């Protein structure tokens, strides 16, 4: 499988995105990071570490499971239903700038579900979106505010972001073998 990004490139990309977050929000005062399960969660934690190094401030992080908000749940899906995991947002999101973090932006349906899920927890001042890879093919009017890498893909391909915390290695791969949806 072709490697789109290696570990070093991913690390530099997260550092760049952290700086963009600081620049755009003029600091990190009211910011909280919320990772979309599964791989958005370690990405959010890494961003929090970088933000602390850059600004000296702790940034709250949470984890969001969007399974119960999916729009394809009850369809006759191929393969198993996703396992529902806990959502952990141990802070108030009211009036804060919430930076949503996910690995791949594709149809936009995951983010639509994440927005619905997040708004059940309160009324954030803004919601911004970080993704490691934007692979196109949007089906909803959704766009990311911070993109690691834009990758033109065909629908038959799949983009796999691997993270050391979960997969033991940092890399982004392009799977051309008739993969399922990323």
């Amino acid at each position, binding site marked *: 499988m072709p490697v789109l990004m290696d570990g070093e490139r991913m690390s530099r990309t997260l550092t760049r995105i952290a700086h963009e977050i600081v620049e755009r929000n003029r600091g990190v005062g009211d910011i909280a990071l919320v990772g979309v399960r599964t791989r958005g969660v370690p990405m959010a934690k890494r961003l929090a570490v970088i933000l602390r190094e850059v600004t000296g401030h702790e940034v709250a992080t949470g984890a969001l499971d969007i399974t119960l908000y999916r729009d394809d749940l009850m369809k006759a899906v191929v393969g198993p239903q996703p396992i529902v995991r806990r959502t952990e947002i141990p802070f108030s999101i009211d009036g804060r700038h919430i930076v949503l973090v996910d690995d791949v932006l594709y149809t936009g349906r995951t983010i639509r579900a994440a927005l619905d899920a997040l708004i059940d*927890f309160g009324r954030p001042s803004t919601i911004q979106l970080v993704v490691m890879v934007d692979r196109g093919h949007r089906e909803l009017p959704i766009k990311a505010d911070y993109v690691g890498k834009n990758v033109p893909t065909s629908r038959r391909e799949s983009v796999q972001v691997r993270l050391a915390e979960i997969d033991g290695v940092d890399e982004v791969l392009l799977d051309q073998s008739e993969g399922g949806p990323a």
Partner: protein
Amino acid sequence: MSDTATRLRGKDLLGIADMTAAEISLILDTAEAMKEVSARPIKKVPALRGKTVINLFYEPSTRTRTSFEVAEKRLSADTLNIAIAQSSVVKGETLIDTALNLEAMNPDIIVCRHGSSGANHLLARTCKAGVVNAGDGMHEHPTQALLDAFTIRERKKRLAGLKVAIVGDLLHSRVFRSNVYLLTKMGAEVWACGPSTLTPVGIANLGIHVTTRVEEAVEGADAVMMLRIQMERMQGGYFPSLREYFQVFGMTPARVALAKPDAIIMHPGPMNRGVEIASEVADGPASVILDQVANGVAVRMAVLYLLAGGGEDEAAA
């Protein structure tokens, strides 16, 4: 791997007896996420939006029916309650005719409690909708066993290797049967104790220990589960008096002291205080009886979610 599951195999949840350990674990794991939903300021997720769930209760029930209804509403399902006293059943309609009429309204899931063992199996064969057994006669009450297991696992972090004592009316109890199936499948050591008149013949064949001495059952137990004396199902003289029953089998502080120091005391409700359990025990620090009620909602949400999402393959095949 065969010991993990990502879906339930059938469209129904009729009993623990025909479930695998992997399916039980899947429900318990899913219930953990569901419990978090109940702790939110907005206790509702859209997972079952547009799904219709019928609660068909042929027997009185407050806790179980309310628990299912809360679970359905938290998943955004549309719920209908059919209480039998106001239904056409009192006009002589059979269970199958009732089922066919309900089926014509195209529900997705029917939650049913019935006084006859096996009624839910009949319903499941008749209907395309998924059927959840909310208690059938003296047979099974699977969601109660699942919430009991969830409560034990929450406190003890495991089920395998634990000693669980179940004390009371073993004969009439569907909660007992479901719990025996579940706990033995998950590797717990089950001790059953009750008067010999209320102990079914041959239950030791289920792979459990059976005794009539409550002290033996409770000694060193990690969890003690009390069963209700079901006066409404007792026509004969199973024991001389409620007072004598309490003296011989009732859970008193002295008997609780025989269990492990961190043992938990459970009861599926409704309790007969002073019959199977002393008030000091029911309200004491080891009691998790109200946790069981709270966990019931989470476990039922998990069951409804998994049934509504799974089972499509078999229906198509």
